């Protein structure tokens, strides 16, 4: 029988094509570079190439019901290598996940909890919004809460969920407050009013949740006067730079590595204490592979006296993802069940192979992910995971060092 109606898979691919994210998936030539590049491709029932093939063949439901749907960790390798410039990471996967949920298919339970936390409390960890500024208690520098005392500032620092709440991250957060103060910039935060930026929701395909966060964050940000937003989370950077403008919400934004690297001549004389460490740097996917900021974090590390920087075999655009993006942070059980391993475990082994004693990171997810991975792989005590901020603060002799 001849049917003239396009199968619903094709209709979905056409929708992705019109979304403005890259070129049309209908232009896929089935070369398979995406599947071969994907760090979890061999474990996927439908790696990106097959996702597109099945959708075109009208087997969309099969794709939507597959565990594959919740295995992409948004490392962007496939998107950057695709010879047809199809935006698989930002375009195809969120659209498929959105469609699955619209059809009533349930995302993995561990992820549902995160969605609900963000919807109810405005943070991924399910913590009280009133405790969002608790990291600043008894801090030796002044933290200006712009939601209570609005005034023009150079930097509006969006602290982020993990940096605000997660105990291991709070030391980094406090160190960054000291660095900003030492640099003499005027800065403030949104205090208990701050909300998740929502990048993870968009990548999960929770478009409605993302939209509601954009609306709420717009109201908060439009009420403030600032030179630039600074974020610790490269995912938030990516969202504010790329997705918020699509809703007409445009704000100047910098990831902290870029912000500090621009001030490196001012920072250098402040780096007074040597940090004797052999350091290897893990390029996070959003600021690194997706946006190409490879040299800024390295310039900061190399400015620290005593630091010897060594590279992993896989670095810059070929860096292996920590497995935490695209919702992966909340899907470890699902990914281990269907993929057989955690990428962060592989990555710490690669870091140890360089002979480094320190793995430097610049994404709030990675402290938890890599420290856990170091424990699991028996590298605890031999490989220390430190945020670049911690290493800088140590060299600047800015007070407490968080436990590592």
């Amino acid at each position, binding site marked *: 029988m001849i049917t003239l109606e396009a199968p619903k898979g094709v209709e979905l691919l056409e929708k992705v094509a019109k979304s403005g994210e890259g070129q049309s998936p209908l232009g896929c030539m089935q070369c398979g570079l995406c599947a071969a590049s994907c760090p979890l491709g061999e474990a996927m029932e439908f790696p990106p190439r097959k996702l597109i093939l099945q959708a075109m063949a009208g087997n969309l439901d099969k794709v939507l019901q597959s565990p594959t749907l919740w295995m992409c960790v948004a490392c962007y390798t496939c998107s950057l290598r695709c010879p047809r410039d199809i935006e698989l990471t930002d375009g195809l996967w969120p659209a498929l996940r959105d469609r699955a949920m619209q059809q009533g298919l349930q995302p993995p339970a561990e992820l549902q909890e995160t969605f609900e936390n963000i919807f109810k409390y405005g943070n991924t960890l*399910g913590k009280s919004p009133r405790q969002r500024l608790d990291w600043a208690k008894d801090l030796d520098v002044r933290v200006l809460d712009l939601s209570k005392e609005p005034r023009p500032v150079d930097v509006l620092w969006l602290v982020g969920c993990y940096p605000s709440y997660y105990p291991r991250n709070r030391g980094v957060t406090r160190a960054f407050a000291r660095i900003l103060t030492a640099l003499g910039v005027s800065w403030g935060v949104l205090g208990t009013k701050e909300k998740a930026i929502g990048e993870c929701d968009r990548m999960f395909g929770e478009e409605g*949740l993302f939209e509601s966060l954009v609306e709420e964050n717009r109201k908060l940000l439009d009420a403030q006067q600032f030179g630039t937003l600074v974020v610790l989370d490269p995912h938030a950077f990516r969202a504010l730079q790329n997705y918020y403008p699509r809703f007409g919400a445009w704000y100047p934004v910098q990831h902290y590595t870029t912000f500090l690297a621009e001030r490196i001549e001012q920072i250098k004389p402040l780096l007074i204490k040597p940090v004797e460490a052999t350091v290897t740097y893990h390029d996070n996917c959003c600021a690194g592979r997706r946006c190409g900021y490879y040299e800024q974090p390295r310039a900061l590390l190399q400015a620290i006296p005593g630091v010897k920087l060594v590279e992993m075999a896989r670095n810059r655009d070929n860096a292996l993802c920590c497995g935490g993006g695209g919702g992966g942070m909340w899907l470890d059980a699902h990914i281990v069940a269907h993929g057989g391993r955690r990428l962060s475990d592989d990555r710490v082994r690669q870091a140890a192979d360089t002979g480094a004693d320190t793995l430097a990171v610049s994404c709030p997810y990675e402290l938890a992910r890599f420290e856990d991975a170091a424990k699991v792989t028996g590298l605890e005590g031999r490989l220390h995971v430190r945020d670049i901020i911690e290493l800088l603060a140590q060299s600047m002799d800015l007070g407490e060092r968080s436990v590592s």
Partner: protein
Amino acid sequence: MNIVVVIRQVPDLIEPIEVDSSGTSLDLGTASFIVNESDDHALEQAILLKESHGAKVTVVALDFGDVDNTLYAAAAKGADRIVKVPCDGDAPRPEAAAAMLAEAIQPLGSDLVLVGVQAHNELDGVLAPLLASQLGLPYVGVIRGVKPAADGGSVVVFKEFPGAVMAQLSVRLPAVLGILGAEQAPRYVPVSRIRAAMKSTQFEEQTVAAPAVEPQVTIRRLYPPAPAARAEMLSGSETEVAARIAAILREKGLVK
């Protein structure tokens, strides 16, 4: 089948609970509210019945504790009708709540009334049986699944007993059931659907006369329990506390 689901909001324990200056009630001035967990299961059970056998699902809720957000989510999940019962200020005590809900539910002509078996601020679980008594209907509680029976005039319910025993009971309709858990976890509904429901859902209001229920039990004093003398409260930094916990676990022989 006409199914009525009762939804209650309860204080969200994410915030610390404080006793107010009267010493006999909680300070809910700054509390946030969430749906009572077993009521959420009752709704899920109703939606499952609607999907598998066809039913009309009406949600009835007392209007307090930011109930609207919960009701929009219920509409997004598939509730057909939403009836709000205005009540003055705080949540009424179970006797009064049962009387108010009964008056609102009576005209709905329901075959089945599903209520969460208890709430964290009502562990006695008296609301559902009180409601059944007000409605003059049979009640059975601690239910973990409901199937329509072939005769059409009854349902088969699965009741949990202690010691890992389940019972299948046949219940003639109409009846009130106290739901412990639905046959599957309450479903996730995407926020876009909730937002759409916010635009399209009309709540009905059913005003009921405030009942003159004389409370048989009054609260004399509310207070946080004093730590027992046997409890050792740990203090210090995270590292010190973690080390102490590890040492205790070793002392007790729970880990090597």
